[in-house]
């Protein structure tokens, strides 16, 4: 009779899968010694079988289990060895995908559209190559108006079929006229886009971006204008301590006209919007022009000024972007420098939403 402990020790001592297989055949193969023992059971008396049967079964089961366990161990060792040989250096760089970006002007335009959508302003557009009637005359700036000269207009040598001089729009305000003529009253629109002035220095570029707002309705007054601008600036800068200072001013297309300053603090050479400009360490900064729409303009838009009135405002988008996101050189906006775009640009996933906050924090 085989000794179970010796058999198991022999199995556990098998060094290779081949040696283990040889042992399996030796003990459990058709001609194997344990298989041979099993065959002797048939020739035994019931009493003898009662005694020998369990012993032989124990021997068979023990050997089978030991072989399985040893096989598993040996296989694991082989796999481990193979895996060890397959080691790679994961500190090597992985393939990279290029990172794109959205220009700050586009981002801020999207932010503005989001805020004004909540205030019920629809989006309107118009051509950038305008005629002088839409850009000036209809906005209460007849030909000899001194304000025309102040606009530093780019002109084309062309006239359109109505004999009007063609020019690059100096502001987004002609969209007011186009929208009034097309849609009538009441109206609540914003008109974003490129505008042009023949002006170029450290803080002015000949092309820049504006967003125009126009509300035409019944009973709209300066108080509504003030609230709208406050609500907008608070939402844009995501600060509740925005303080506005309204100053009387003059634009031919509004009456009364109001220039709007916002209070800011100087923090480490940067302007941080918030607080009253009269507070210590603070000052006022002009951010936009606005006013109640001049009745001549409402008339030019084909709307009855006796019945309808409203307000309009125009804001420089580039400056808003600079104030919010800390760029200090306007000219860099239009250079297409990829280093600048990577630094100041936004991820495609930074979609402004009211629920997530329109701004993208650092």
């Amino acid at each position, binding site marked *: 009779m085989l000794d179970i402990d010796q058999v198991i020790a022999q199995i556990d001592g098998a060094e290779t899968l081949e040696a283990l297989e040889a042992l399996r055949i030796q003990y459990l193969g058709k001609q194997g010694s344990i298989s041979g023992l099993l065959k002797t059971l048939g020739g035994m008396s019931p009493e003898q079988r009662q005694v020998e049967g369990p012993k032989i079964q124990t021997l068979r089961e023990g050997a089978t289990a030991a072989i399985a366990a040893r096989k598993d161990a040996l296989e694991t060792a082989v796999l481990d060895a193979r895996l060890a040989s397959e080691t790679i250096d994961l500190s090597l760089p992985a393939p990279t995908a290029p990172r794109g970006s959205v220009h700050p002007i586009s981002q801020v335009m999207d932010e503005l559209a989001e805020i004004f959508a909540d*205030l019920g302003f629809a989006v309107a557009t118009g051509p950038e*190559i305008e005629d002088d009637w839409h850009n000036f005359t209809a906005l209460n700036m007849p030909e000899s108006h001194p*304000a025309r000269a102040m606009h530093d207009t780019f002109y084309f040598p062309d006239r359109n079929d109505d004999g009007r001089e063609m020019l*690059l729009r100096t502001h987004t305000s002609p969209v007011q006229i186009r929208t009034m003529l097309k849609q009538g009253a009441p109206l609540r629109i914003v008109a974003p886009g490129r505008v042009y002035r023949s002006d170029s220095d450290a803080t002015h570029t000949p092309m820049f971006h504006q967003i125009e707002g126009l509300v035409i309705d019944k009973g709209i007054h300066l108080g509504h204008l*003030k609230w*709208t601008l406050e609500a907008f600036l608070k939402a844009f800068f995501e600060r509740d301590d925005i303080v506005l200072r309204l100053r*009387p001013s003059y634009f031919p297309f509004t009456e009364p006209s109001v220039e709007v300053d916002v209070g800011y603090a100087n923090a480490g050479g940067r302007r941080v919007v918030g607080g009253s400009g009269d507070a210590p360490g603070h000052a006022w900064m002009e951010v936009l022009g606005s006013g109640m729409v*001049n009745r001549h303009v409402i008339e030019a838009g084909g709307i009855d000024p006796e019945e309808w*009135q409203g307000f309009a405002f125009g804001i420089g988008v580039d400056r808003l972007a600079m104030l919010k996101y800390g760029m200090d050189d306007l000219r860099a906006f239009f250079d*297409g420098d990829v280093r600048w775009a990577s630094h100041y640009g936004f991820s495609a996933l930074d979609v402004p939403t009211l629920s997530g906050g329109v701004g993208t924090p650092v």
Partner: protein
Amino acid sequence: MKFSLSWLKQYLETDAGIDAIAAKLNAIGLEVEGVEDPAEKLAGFRVARVLTTARHPDADKLQVLSVDTGEGGPLQVVCGAPNARAGMIGVLGLPGATVPANGMVLRKSAIRGVESNGMMCSTRELELGEDHDGIIELPDDAPVGTDFAQYHGADPVIDVAITPNRPDCMGLYGIARDVAAAGLGTLKPIEALEIEGTFPCPVEIRIEDAEGCPAFYGRVIRGVKNGPSPQWLQDRLKSAGQRPISALVDATNYVMLAYGRPAHAYDLAKLNGAIVARRAGEGESVVALNEKTYTLDAEMTVIADQSGVHDIAGIMGGARSGCGDDTTDILLEIAYFDPERIARTGRKLNLTSDARGRFERGIDPNFLDTGLAHLTKLIQTLCGGEASEVARVGAAPATPKIVHFAPSLVEKLGGVTVSPAEQQRILESLGFSVVASEEHGAPSWAVTVPGWRPDVDGAPDLVEEVVRIHGLDKVESVPLPRAEGVARPTATPAQTLERRVRRAAAARGLLEAVTWSFLPEAAAQAFAEGDLWVLANPISEDMKAMRPSLLPGLLMAARRNLDRGASSLRLFEVGRRYLRGAGGASDERLTLGLVLAGEKTPRGWATGKAAAFDAYDAKAEVVALLAEAGAPVDKLQVMGEAGPQFHPGQSATLRLGPKTVLARFGMLHPRLAKQFDVEGAVAVAEIHLDAIPARKGAASFARVSYAPPPLQAVTRDFAFLVPAALPAGDLVRVVQGADKANIVATRLFDDFRGQGVPEGQKSLALEVTLQPLEKSYKDEDLKAISEKVTAAAAKLGAVLRG
């Protein structure tokens, strides 16, 4: 408009200080651009008495002074001024003070070995005059120890931006009127002066252009003596930023600055015959006071005599008849010129002047006589002389404007409640006169507009007057009425499209650029389709023509980046391209441009050498972005004719139907690469976002119903021999269409030429995906589909490879 505080106070009785006045000016719409307080510049300078003087031991020209500063013991000061002497009172700059003239900060020092505790100053050093021959000598009663700024009566200067609607505030008196109306003092009346002449005006004055010059008043003053004007006048002009010239010229400038009333003094000796206000002859020229020659036309009003033009009316006097030191007799001109004509003439001549600025905005037509009287008096005071009677030719359009005004409009438009009594007070203090009456039980006023306010012509203007003087800060915010419920979507389809492709491009690794709308003409011409829009007055030759494509601007940006050492560029821009439209208008089309330049992938440990971009990279972007834009990508055809800007063999268009080009892409033509100075392989693409068909009908959210088929799809490979020139896309398209019920996808995976493929042919291998619907395919089903595929391909000359 700049002026000193003391000058303002000549017209305004007030105790208010500079800060209060500046704040009030801002509040009423006269924007303060700066306040210059000389007291700040003179900080640290003190009235001091020289007690003793002694020779400097080591320098002949220096003295060592002992100076009493009014506190503590005397200070030792080294001084080089020849007039320094014991007992005199002068101005001592103490250590820490900054010398206004040169910005030098004074400190205790040793001069040639002798300690000096400050500096005795000259008028030039303190920017109070030009004298630098010696130190300032103050009168004997000057109080030693006082701050010199206080003693000198330092006069702050305020710089105010005047909006173009306020000609009245281009005279200091108008500013004083506004400030007084706003409650900061009392306006002093202008003396209603009349100066009788002692002899008839000896010069004949005629108006031949009554339209351009409705009124011309003139008078001669004989026997004047010109020369420098007195200090007080020079100080005032300097505070206003004007250079004093001579008493006669300074006097006219003073009246202009004080009352906003331009006038002109001619040297009578240089006039010849009658003075005529007429139109210029076409091509007539004049040398103006700025010594430039201007060529005039028949639309321009001039003042001329028999010898020719003297004066571009209302804009600038002529060099020929200006007053000089030897002038003894003068003709004064006070005229009223038509504002529009002045504006047009000034614009045509590109000539700005103080007079033009006032005339084109509108001069008070009621101020000719008073203005002339004040000017006469001032000239007589400064230069003496005997005045003639006034020759009055024509009349200024002085019919007063009356505006009907309901005081309730202030609340309706301005959103602030101001009592009618206060409204009336404000208007009257600004010079309006109010006749109150009632209409239908509500107050209705007839408000007469003063001559100096040509800007006021309607009731809203009066609302502005009331609100700005009452205080815009008193307007309370009122929420804009809100539509019920959640805010509705507001973006236009074009805006939605623009946002979507922009973010899709950024997500694909492209960097967004915003480039100028205008280009150098040659750069624009290279991409022109028809006539360009070219500016008549560009800011530079580099910004002259409106872009007909987004690619030139992006190529220029690419070059700048490559010049800065960038190795890989993926740039895009979304914006308009500017074409010619109907009726002489523009046609501005929403476009996406992209440029891929430099390395597509850098050299890498796993990838080997750096790879360059090719036309397929451009195609990949175009197809992906068009898909995001909602274009029917699977219906697009790849066709040629991308344009002469592209490599003719490596470019294509994507079209919806034969005419509608949605995009063009490919490699940049080497000729253009050279023109734009971009090296290496450059792939470019332009997507015409405006050409993408809009969604038809109202937005619907439910998708076409779909359930994934329960049976598994199977794939079959086909390899065809086709003519080498056959576009692979054509083969894919016919195979895809061979059995629409079963074929759900066709993918080309091999394009092979060479061994085993006959010359002039190529082998294209396709993987066709078949989707069984009801039941699994049997062998005969698959055979039938294969036959359809082979038959369809055969129409293109394709032969199935064995």
